[in-house]
């Protein structure tokens, strides 16, 4: 595999080269779309393809010299998709991996289908299409060889960049077959044959990531690494309160700083603003340092607007008050009131999770160049199509005039789904008539993010005399992501509960899962695993509390709670419409209790569950179904005398259906646990007077090496089942498993996150 950096240092030149390669004589382009797969000659790409009503996705180009280009239409942010996607296609195609190269797709209206890299959806949405693309190429080349040799296509087969006629021992390279293949009709879909498990070379096996060399030598190109001739750097002062506006600016000191060239105001988008910029005042300079100094020297008077009194302490109290009375139903099954009334034992508990910021290592950054009204942008974006559309809307130009190139992402976690920062670069480039890089500082990144919802939960359960859960009432309240996009949103929608609260894999006869109103006073947005973070923490903690209350072992209790084997369509078990299932049908992806129990057993077995640990050490378990995958985690903590929590080891069991790239799945589970350590132990964003109280990693703390696990033992259930998500499902069980382990270690139950210093002096508090 030859790696091409996602984006070159001198993009225009390389893009031209790449463009010419695409159009070069002899190139054979395969497009795959929902309408099926068709062959398009280079010459007809721009006519037929753009007329394609089903947004065909261009994946594979076989060049006359035999080189294969695979276009990755998903953004690389650490999940390994730039390796996983090509390896599936190359495997099905019988391409020689050393003759394949990967190019990163630009944002496009239709050609690639959805490029929005979120929701842990790349493989689960596209596996079949990737296999079809590869199998189509293979069939086409086999047909070409059969035609050249005048033999039956069934008598030849592709093998590592050649087609072989076994009866005679003849072989032909892929390169030598291109000319003939170009003249052939596309193989019918029913003729396509996907490889059997035994035939696969790479799918489901370990494959080194294609970007390892550039990532370990400094050559990898992220958003901030794009350098254009004549490029200026902008650093922006944004309204400190969501919805605020500039009243007046004194830029006299800023303009005297050497290197500072211009000060330009960016108008705020009308509230709530959605993907558009917050507005503010940009300092444009010849280098980043001058722009930072210039920004800091601005004297701005702000009108703080409608959210100037947002206060996290008060807001927490209001959310907690909300969940203490009846809320809007998200799932109603049986009769929870009767169930609770008839229970021999009732337990209730409340949990709280603060706002979080993604704090991905690369603060958001974008480069744009506007020439003759056309925008060309380079950015670490998870969603180049949203970027194009939002730029067009913000600049009031036709989307056809906007090109978005996707660089590598220095972490995404949902922050880079939002293209506000790319719009800023485009706006400023147009304003000053030169290429502009907008660099957010870390402080900007923490203070002007799209925050993970702050959430309050109240859970009540009734158990019968045997400790079996017969009633479950779960009320939660949190501001809605929808409030970032539409005015007057009263709170999260009941269907948001299907992100791991109302769709839980537990067999409980009487259930009521409810959502309360919560107005948003900050920009709310997706953050890795989204609501499943706080749903998972509250539910996984509460189940552990129930186990301890009933005097049962948490693993045995969980298995009993999940209940008998069944595959359930939860839309028929009380979920309110539309009864979401991560965009999939309940038929394809039912709630499968056997899989849930399977991962619980697997994790417990490998973790040495039940073996004794000294006081101060403990294990906790939790399971969560999210993004159509089942993950159970046993986390072991070592709580120091001062309350510091270390995580020496964890055992993870994941059933995600077919897993195309198991080592990257493992690394996602390792990362999910460590991100959950941050979410659970350290991180929080708080507001006072509408302003974010944190600014950098010194006060927005995240997990570091000292606390990080020495062993993360990941077990992936081998499966040919429909693929589920991988990037996100590891986070939701991890937070609860950590909290449950802390309880096991210390006897202290932490219900308000982050854990922070709550465990200081724990030895004196519990026996």
């Amino acid at each position: 595999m030859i790696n091409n950096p996602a984006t070159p240092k001198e993009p225009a030149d390389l893009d031209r080269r790449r463009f010419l390669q695409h159009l070069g004589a002899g190139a054979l382009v395969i497009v795959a779309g929902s309408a099926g797969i068709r062959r398009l000659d280079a010459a007809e790409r721009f006519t037929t393809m753009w007329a394609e009503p089903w947004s065909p996705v261009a994946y594979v180009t076989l060049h006359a010299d035999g080189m294969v280009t695979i276009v990755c239409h998903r953004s690389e942010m650490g999940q390994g998709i730039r390796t996983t996607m090509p390896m599936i296609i190359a495997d099905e195609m019988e391409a020689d991996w050393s003759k394949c190269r990967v190019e990163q797709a630009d944002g496009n209206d239709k050609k690639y289908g959805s490029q929005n890299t979120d929701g842990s959806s790349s493989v689960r949405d596209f596996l079949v299409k990737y296999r079809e693309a590869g199998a189509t190429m293979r069939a086409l080349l086999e047909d070409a060889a059969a035609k050249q040799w005048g033999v039956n296509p069934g008598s030849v087969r592709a093998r590592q960049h050649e087609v072989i006629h076994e009866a005679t021992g003849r072989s032909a390279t892929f390169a030598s077959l291109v000319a003939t293949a170009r003249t052939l009709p596309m193989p019918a879909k029913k003729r396509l044959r996907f490889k059997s498990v035994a035939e696969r070379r790479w799918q489901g096996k370990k494959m080194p990531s294609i970007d390892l060399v550039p990532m370990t030598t400094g050559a990898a190109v992220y958003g901030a690494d794009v350098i254009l001739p004549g490029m200026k750097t902008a650093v922006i002062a944004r309204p400190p309160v969501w919805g605020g506006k500039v009243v007046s600016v004194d830029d006299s000191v800023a303009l005297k700083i050497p290197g500072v060239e211009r000060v330009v105001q960016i108008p705020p988008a009308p509230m709530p603003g959605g993907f558009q910029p917050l507005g503010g005042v940009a300092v444009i300079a010849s280098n980043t340092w001058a722009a930072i100094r210039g920004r800091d020297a601005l004297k701005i008077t702000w009108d703080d607007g409608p959210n100037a009194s947002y206060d996290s302490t008060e807001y927490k109290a209001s959310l907690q008050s909300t969940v203490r009375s009846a809320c809007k139903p998200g799932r109603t099954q049986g009769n929870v009131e009767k169930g609770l009334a008839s229970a021999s034992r009732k337990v209730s508990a409340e949990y709280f999770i603060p706002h979080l910021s993604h704090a991905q290592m690369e603060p958001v950054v974008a480069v744009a160049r506007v020439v003759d009204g056309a925008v060309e942008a380079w950015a670490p974006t998870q969603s180049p199509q949203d970027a194009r559309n939002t730029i067009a809307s913000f600049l009031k130009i036709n989307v056809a005039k906007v090109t978005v190139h996707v660089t590598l992402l220095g972490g995404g976690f949902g922050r880079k789904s939002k293209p506000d920062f790319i719009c800023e670069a485009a706006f400023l480039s147009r304003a000053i008539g030169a290429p502009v890089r907008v660099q957010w500082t870390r402080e900007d990144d923490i203070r002007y993010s799209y925050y993970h919802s702050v959430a309050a939960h109240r859970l009540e359960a009734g158990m019968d005399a045997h400790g079996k859960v017969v009633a479950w009432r779960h009320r939660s309240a949190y501001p809605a992501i929808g409030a970032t996009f539409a005015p007057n949103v009263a709170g999260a929608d009941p269907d948001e509960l299907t992100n791991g609260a109302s769709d839980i894999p537990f067999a409980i006869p009487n259930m009521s899962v409810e959502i309360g109103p919560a107005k948003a006073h900050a920009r709310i947005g997706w953050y890795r695993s989204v609501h499943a973070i706080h749903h998972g923490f509250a539910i996984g903690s509460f189940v552990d509390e129930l186990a301890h209350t009933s005097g049962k072992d948490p693993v045995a209790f969980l298995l009993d709670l999940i209940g008998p084997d069944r595959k359930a369509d939860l839309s028929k078990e009380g979920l309110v419409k539309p009864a979401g299932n991560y965009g999939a049908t309940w038929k394809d992806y039912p709630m499968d209790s056997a899989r849930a129990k399977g991962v619980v057993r697997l994790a417990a077995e490998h973790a040495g569950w039940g073996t004794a640990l000294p006081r101060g050490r403990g294990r906790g378990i939790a399971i969560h179904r999210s993004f159509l995958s089942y993950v159970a985690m046993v986390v072991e903590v070592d709580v120091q005398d001062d309350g510091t929590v270390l995580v020496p080891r964890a055992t993870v069991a994941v059933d995600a259906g077919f897993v195309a790239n198991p080592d990257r799945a493992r690394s996602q589970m390792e990362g999910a646990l460590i991100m959950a350590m941050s979410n659970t132990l350290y991180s929080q964003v708080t507001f006072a007077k509408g302003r974010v109280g944190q600014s950098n990693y010194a006060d927005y703390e995240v997990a570091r090496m000292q606390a990080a696990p020495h062993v993360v033992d990941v077990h992936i259930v081998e499966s040919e089942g429909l693929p589920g998500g991988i990037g996100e499902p590891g986070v939701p069980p991890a937070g609860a498993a950590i909290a449950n382990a802390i309880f096991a270690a210390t006897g202290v139950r932490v219900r308000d996150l982050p854990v922070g210093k709550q465990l200081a002096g724990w030895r004196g508090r519990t026996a």
Partner: protein
Amino acid sequence: MISLLVNGARRTFNGDPTMPLLWFLRDELALTGTKYGCGISECGACTVHVDGKPARACQMNMAKLDGRTVVTIEGLHPTGEHPAQIAWRELDVPQCGFCQSGQIMEAAALLKTTPKPTDHDIDDAMTGHICRCGTYPRIRAAIKAAAGKAP
């Protein structure tokens, strides 16, 4: 005029002496392997070697760099095959990769002074480096795999 060696080449600078080395490397020399992550020495993404020792490029003003020797990730090894770089690839350490330049520069410095680091040595040296993807367990393993191998 400030004169320094960067990856073996003589470089000069006569701009704002308060400019941190980080922005000189990135903006003036286009050595973009050194990353900006926090600007306050909390994350380690900008780690380079100054006179052979690991340093946070965001905290070193150009005024202090006259006559000094700077090595960045691009100059760590002529063919990118420092034992740490090799181990990082063998263990497929990076996820997004953004913090790894700084992590590798710190690890290379650690291995020079402590060829066979213990877990404790590794934790001490590396805890100033943040990785939000969570590659810490693999970084620890990679440093051990690289231990004792001559660069």
